[in-house]
Every structure is written in structure tokens, then in C-alpha cells.
């Protein structure tokens, strides 16, 4: 019997500072054979073990098209993420997964995609952004637009992607905003939901995929509905306190749905059927 609670030993091979409190960890399995059964899809999550401290559920931010490694972008907020931030390249960790459902990338084929992210919320979206932009996949999808905001310019995650990579990809636009004006920033200033309304993208043949702080998601969802996006084309991914990640420990449910196995990806039409307890 496979043991869903036992992690695979793995090693951090590279750490990138994204912001003052976000780091991206590049991780490879110690046993290369693990890749044969660890095949994640964009939007899925994994449990990262820091041995001696515990585990936390983190979204996989690298696209499955990038083979042979996993990337996790982690904001330092609590015990486990604090301990993870102390580690150096070469440190041993454990990985369990892939867990949860994924973005409906098959259903999205032939459509334009609008990504709306805030802060560390870009991490799960990035797996899908790179998935649709990579190689042959690109031809299956229409325009890719990315609206992304953070508190300040320093708090923007994935600066290399945002400034140097994504804007130069064909059919791809990146719109950036920060909460307050600051010296040296010539871009847009203001919150993500109001920037979204300003840009006012057409809902025609377009999926909107959003992730960010709970309050941002709330206002983005209502802005998208105002713009005329149907509930079946608005997609978000949720975060919850998790322990087991396999639908048994009982804490990440919203109504009858467990975010770890029934989520983390939900259509707005599904969320509307659930109690507002997240």
C-alpha cells in the first residue's frame, strides 16, 4: 500500500530571493525514480517537510513542462515557512504529493487567458502561465494577459519573469501595479481589483484565473462578474491550513469539500455552492 503520509527525501538545489520575505526553492528528489510517479499538473500543491519542524502545504510554482525539478515560492509567515527560509542550498527536505486538483488547462484550450494575481498569489498561477507559454502548448491558447500587484515594487515576486521574460513572449501582456506610489516607480499605482476594472478586459472567449490575499480575491471576483465573466470561466485557487493533504485530518473543508483533495482550484460557480467559510 502506498503511504500518502510519507515524504520523498529531496534536496534544495537553488534558492532565489524574490522579495524581502519570499524565496523560491528549487528542489530535486534524491531518488530520480520518484519522477516516474510524481507527475504534477499546474495548480497542484505538495507538502514540504522540514525535518524536525514539520510540514506545510505549498503550491508548486514550476510548470510540469520544466522537467526534473520542482519550484516552490514561499512567503515567510509562520513556523514552518520560517524554518524553510533558514535553509541553504544543499539542505535536505521531504516532499509529499502531488496533491489536490489542477487548473482545467484542457478546457481552456482555444481561449484567451487572464491571470490576476496579488502578492504571493502569483505563485500557483505561475505554474499555469509557464505551462501555456512553454513550447508547443503555446499554440493551444490565445492571448495571455497577466495583471499583478504587490504592496510595493520590492514585494513583486518573480521579477525576472515579470520584466524580462513574460512581456517578450508572443501574445502576452503584463500589467503591474503597486499599492502606493514610491520613488523610482513609473508604473500603475492602486489595488489590483480597481486596476482590473480600469483595464476592463472583455469576457469574450476568455478565462479569468485569480489568486491573492482573501480580500483581493473577494473584490476581484466581484469585478470579474461586473465585467461580464460567467461563473464557469472564473477560476481561483484557495489556501487553507492543512496537515494531511489527503482529505482525512479534517481542517481544510469548506462545507463538504476538502480544499486539499476537492481543491485547491475552484470555479466561481462551485464556490457559490459552498458556505463562505474560507
Amino acid at each position, binding site marked *: 500500500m502506498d503511504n500518502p503520509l510519507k515524504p520523498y527525501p529531496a534536496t534544495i538545489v537553488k534558492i532565489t530571493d524574490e522579495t524581502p520575505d519570499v524565496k523560491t526553492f528549487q528542489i530535486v528528489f534524491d531518488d530520480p525514480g520518484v519522477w516516474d510517479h510524481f507527475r504534477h499538473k499546474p495548480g497542484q500543491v505538495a507538502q514540504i517537510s522540514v525535518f524536525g519542524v514539520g*510540514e506545510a502545504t505549498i503550491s508548486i510554482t514550476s510548470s510540469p513542462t520544466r522537467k526534473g525539478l520542482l519550484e516552490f515560492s514561499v512567503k515567510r509567515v509562520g513556523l*514552518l515557512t520560517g524554518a524553510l527560509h533558514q535553509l541553504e542550498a544543499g539542505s535536505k527536505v521531504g516532499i509529499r504529493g502531488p496533491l489536490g486538483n489542477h487548473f482545467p488547462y484542457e478546457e481552456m484550450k482555444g481561449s484567451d487567458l487572464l491571470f490576476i494575481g496579488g502578492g504571493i498569489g502569483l505563485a500557483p498561477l505561475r505554474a499555469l502561465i509557464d505551462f501555456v507559454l512553454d513550447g508547443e502548448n503555446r499554440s493551444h491558447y490565445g492571448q495571455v494577459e497577466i495583471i499583478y500587484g504587490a504592496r510595493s515594487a520590492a514585494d513583486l515576486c518573480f521579477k525576472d519573469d515579470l520584466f524580462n521574460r513574460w512581456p517578450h513572449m508572443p501574445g502576452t501582456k503584463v500589467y503591474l501595479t503597486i499599492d502606493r506610489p514610491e520613488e523610482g516607480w513609473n508604473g500603475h499605482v492602486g489595488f489590483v481589483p480597481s486596476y482590473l476594472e480600469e483595464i476592463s478586459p472583455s469576457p469574450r472567449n476568455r478565462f479569468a484565473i485569480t489568486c491573492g490575499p482573501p480580500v483581493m480575491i473577494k473584490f476581484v471576483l466581484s469585478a470579474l462578474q461586473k465585467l461580464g465573466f460567467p461563473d464557469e470561466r472564473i477560476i481561483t485557487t484557495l489556501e487553507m491550513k492543512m496537515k494531511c493533504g489527503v482529505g482525512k485530518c479534517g*481542517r481544510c473543508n469548506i462545507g463538504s469539500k476538502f480544499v486539499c483533495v476537492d481543491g485547491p482550484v475552484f470555479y466561481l460557480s462551485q464556490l457559490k455552492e459552498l458556505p463562505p467559510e474560507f
Partner: protein
Amino acid sequence: MLLLKKEQLLAWLNKLTQAYQVFAPVNEEGCVSFKQIEAGDQCTLDYTNSKVPPKEVLFPRSEYLFCYRCEKEHVELKEQIDEHKKVIFGLRPCDARSFLLLDNVFRNERFQDPYYLTRRKNTVLVGLGCNQPPATCFCTSLGSGPFATEGLDLLLVDIGDRYVLEVLTERGQELLSGMELPAADQEAREAAQKVKEGAAVSSRVTLEGLKSKLDVSFDHPLWDLIHEKCLGCAACTYTCPTCHCFDIVDEAQGNEGCRVRSWDACMFPLFTLHGSGHNPRPTNKERFRQRVMHKFKYFVDNFNATACVGCGRCILNCPVNLDIREVIAEIQGTEVRSNKQ
């Protein structure tokens, strides 16, 4: 049906302890719980029900998932799967039913839990019918009963100086190998029947329509008041045979440690607290609602079964007399029906 004289019980239990880990009700200063016994005389069958349910035999309060040693170049993990053959002896039919409910959680199509399932597979259940169910029992409302056999391998029915033994499965039969037990005669059968008829479960809850009421009552004002006397102590979850929430933590020293799974409870504020400080169930109201909803709606949605066996432990052990039967009645908009005065 077979007949077992009470004086044969000790020898049988002693024999079972040779081949199995036998868990039986043990009375420690008035507190009965299922403990592993080394000899038959350590157990008591003169009890109403155990304080803590026997679910802890299959799903312990605390258990090692695996232990590890973390070297610079290498991590070694060793799983701690308990493969001992076990007998749970003398458990009540309601608690046997709880295992059927827990199976849904630990053995669903998505993920199987090897810790619970390995123990489950290796455990034989010997039930003891309830001649005198206490007033807090409402098992018959949940599809069980004082002599229900569902989930059991053997059932003992106490008819005074003897037990009528109902053999329900092959695994149950195996426990009797080498024992030459006579078939229950007419008189014993009649005595057993009489005991069963006399064992009245006096209180009831009405499940009919409850789920459909809960389907639409997440925002109902009743939740504002109904939780008010609840202290959030989680005695109800700790003593519940169907509660399965758990925590996972590391216990480590230096580069060696173990990952531990322990019972946890939805009644605790930290249970759902995010690292960011956000808490989707921030007050006792949401937590109390979660407990009720999980048992009588969410579990039904997911597994088509109610996560309650009517054992009454949450009623007996609540320090403020919060009674789940009254909660259900309030949701139903009716009073608890009782045959007893």
C-alpha cells in the same frame, strides 16, 4: 449460536492473549477504557460503556508515522506500521459501527491510510450486547441497536450465568478454534431473546429531514445562540467514536526525529488558524456549527452516512450538559422524544 459458560471466559481470553494483542475494557479507578490485557482477569465486562471509545486501538491518540535520521547527504525514513494481530474484546455494537464509518475516511477511493487500515485488517471484533443501555444512548436512531451485529465478528449476549455467542464471520469462528462449545439450546435462545427485548433504548433523535434542514441552515440564526454554553473543551470530540480529526507534528532531537500523528479537534481555535493569522472559523459559533454540520451533513454528503452512532459519550462527558439530542431537536424544531419518565 453457541453457548459459553461464564467460567470458560477467562480461559478463552487467556488463550487469545497468546496469539493476539487483546484489547478489552479495563477498569482503572472507575474509568473504563480499552487496554491491552496480558491475562483475562484484567478485563471487566461489567460496564456500561468505556469512557474513551475503542477507536483508539485502530487510531491511537498519538502514534508514530515514521522516524527519520537526517544526514548531510542522506535522509533515512522508516515507517512505523503496526502489523500485530489484534482482538478488540467486549466492545459495544455502537462502537463496532463506528469502525464502518471511520473506514469511509481512511479507505476512500482517493487515498488509503496504511496505519489505520493495516490495524483494521488485522483486528477481530468481539462485541458485547447491551442488556441495560443507559439513558444517554440513542443508537437505535442511527441504525444501530444494543444487540446490532453490523461490523462485528462475534457477539456475546449475556443471559446470566452464560453467554449466547453469535458467530458472525469466519474471522470470528477462528477465535473459537480448539474450543468445543455446544450449540445454544432452546432455553438459552429464548433467554437471549428475552434479554434483547428487555434492553430498551429510551431516547431517540429524529434524523429524518435533518440533512435537508442543515443543507439550508448554514446562515440560520440558531447558530448564534446554540453554541453559547459550549466551552470549546473538545471533550465531545475526544470521546467520540467517529471523530477522526488529527494533527501531525515532528518530535526531534538533533538530526533524529519522528513524525507523530495525534488526535485533534475542530473545537479548538488553532485547528484552522492560518500561518498568516487568518482564521476561517474564528469563533466558537463557527466551530460548533462545523462539528454539527460535519456529523450530520458534510459526512452524509461525502459518504452517504451520518457520522454518529448514538453512543451518548458526548452527552455524558460534556461539562456544561450540552446535549446533541437537544441540538438536533432544536434544528428539527421539535422536542426530544423520550419513552422514559
